[in-house]
């Protein structure tokens, strides 16, 4: 049953050094506030899992939280590179980053399989691609009915899953609306889940088949207004595209990044 905690307490309770951690949100609803809280709490040696690392993992990698990254597209959308990620992969700064690289289809299926409690996902994927040569997590199986060769990847079943959503009701049921990505899958696949929300309301006012995650499938809910900024929350605030563009310059330079981190994360209390 979901417990309402401060973001600080939720992260302190569930995110441990060395944990496998997925923080999702496909462009939309990226849990930046939670990422910053993890940086502030100085977590280390995390295995980070996200389809699109985006700025949130660029920041966490740059801050030294990560030892391993599982992902499928590591750019700054519409802008270019993630320089902190590249610096870690190419130069080992601030520490080496081991990467396990997938395609989106495989990761989406791996989240689906994780939510479904399976050890593997099966897909028609990676045909002719070099990715299986460099990622030992990609295998192939033979369909027992047709003989077709299909790709198999391990399900994503992280220790902790964190997503952001628009709102929770007072019983801790959460509504996710718009681009829902793999938000539900992350919560269901994780051993422990934290959902940050823009607000808590009396009634979700959701349609009969809306993407509602019941409170009893969530461990902690933390209110984090603007918690997805600089990504966006459908119905609340738009994506700050300028910040995404500006990030390119900040992240390109180790010192500029350190200064940004100091000012906007370490000295930013619990806010995003």
């Amino acid at each position, binding site marked *: 049953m979901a417990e309402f905690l401060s973001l600080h307490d939720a992260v302190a309770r569930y995110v441990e050094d060395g944990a496998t951690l997925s923080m999702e949100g496909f*462009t*939309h609803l990226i849990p930046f506030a939670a990422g910053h809280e993890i940086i502030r709490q100085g977590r280390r040696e995390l295995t980070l899992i996200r389809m699109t690392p985006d700025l949130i993992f660029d920041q966490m990698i740059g801050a030294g939280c990560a030892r391993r990254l599982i992902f499928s597209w590591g750019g700054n959308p519409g*802008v270019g590179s993630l320089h902190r990620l590249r610096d870690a992969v190419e130069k080992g700064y601030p520490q080496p980053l081991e990467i396990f690289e997938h395609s989106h*289809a495989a990761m989406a299926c791996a989240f689906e399989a994780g939510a479904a409690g399976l050890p593997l996902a099966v897909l028609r994927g990676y*045909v002719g691609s070099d990715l299986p040569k460099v990622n030992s997590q990609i295998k192939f199986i033979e369909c027992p009915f047709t003989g077709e060769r299909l790709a198999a990847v391990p399900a994503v079943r992280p220790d902790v899953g964190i997503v952001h959503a628009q709102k929770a009701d007072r019983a801790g049921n959460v509504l996710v609306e718009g681009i*829902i990505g*793999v938000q*539900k899958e992350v919560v269901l696949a994780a051993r422990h889940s934290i959902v940050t929300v823009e607000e808590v309301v009396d009634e979700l006012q959701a349609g009969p088949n809306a993407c509602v995650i019941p409170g009893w499938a969530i461990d902690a809910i933390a209110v984090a207004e603007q918690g997805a900024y600089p990504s966006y929350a459908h119905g609340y605030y738009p994506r700050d595209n300028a910040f995404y563009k500006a990030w390119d310059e900040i992240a390109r330079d180790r010192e500029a990044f350190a200064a940004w981190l100091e000012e906007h994360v370490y000295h930013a209390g619990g806010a995003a």
Partner: protein
Amino acid sequence: MSLDYTAAEMMTVTAARALANGTTCFVGIGLPSEAANLARLTHAPEVVLIYESGTLQTKPNVLPLSIGDGELCETALTTVSVPEMFRYWLQGGHVDVGFLGTAQIDRYCNLNTTLIGDYREPKVRLPGGGGAPEIATNAGEVFITVKHSRRTFVEAVDFVTTVGFGRDGRARDGVPNIGRGPTRVITDLCVMKPDPETKELVVVSLHPGVTAEQVQEASGWEIRFAERLETTPEPGAEELNVLRELKARTARHHAGNETGAQA
């Protein structure tokens, strides 16, 4: 009477024209997105655009900066989860055309968006595969649009992120339940199509004013040209107007969004 247009506009209009009305198109961000939306706003009002963020049949008024902009969801018929998008809609066989960009391409249309150099010691780390590896095999066919340059058109891609026809042109042979693969490459200089037999890319059409030498100069391998080499039709006034308005609208929109509070 010829209109004024840039090579980039020539490329986008040509790419847009490739997309037939009523086609279901899985759209990559950047050039493919620009071309696909131009098609929708001109000759192909009923083209169905799908973005990997789960937005089905979307009609963005401005070009998205990211694959998951709010605009894509707000103008979509419906938005599904990302697993559903890749499982039911792409792998399920409901996509006619996958429209991709790339960082490197070789003569067999293999695409590299992973890195330059060696995988374990990359010279440059690129974003990676994203949706492309399975778009390339699960869509009915694939269009590629990319600017011509020797950095992009290379003798051998450093990494096959996304298969065209494999290093030897035979990678699709005998593989069941996959699409036809790339059927055309649209650049700012020309249009290329794979040879039906060998699958090697062949220039079938040069854009107006472009010479075969220019194409060869901008390519890292010895380019084949079709025997009957055509001249790509020029953009029309309407197409150029719509494209320019779309880009201006897009620039105004994304500038309007720019609060950059933390930057």
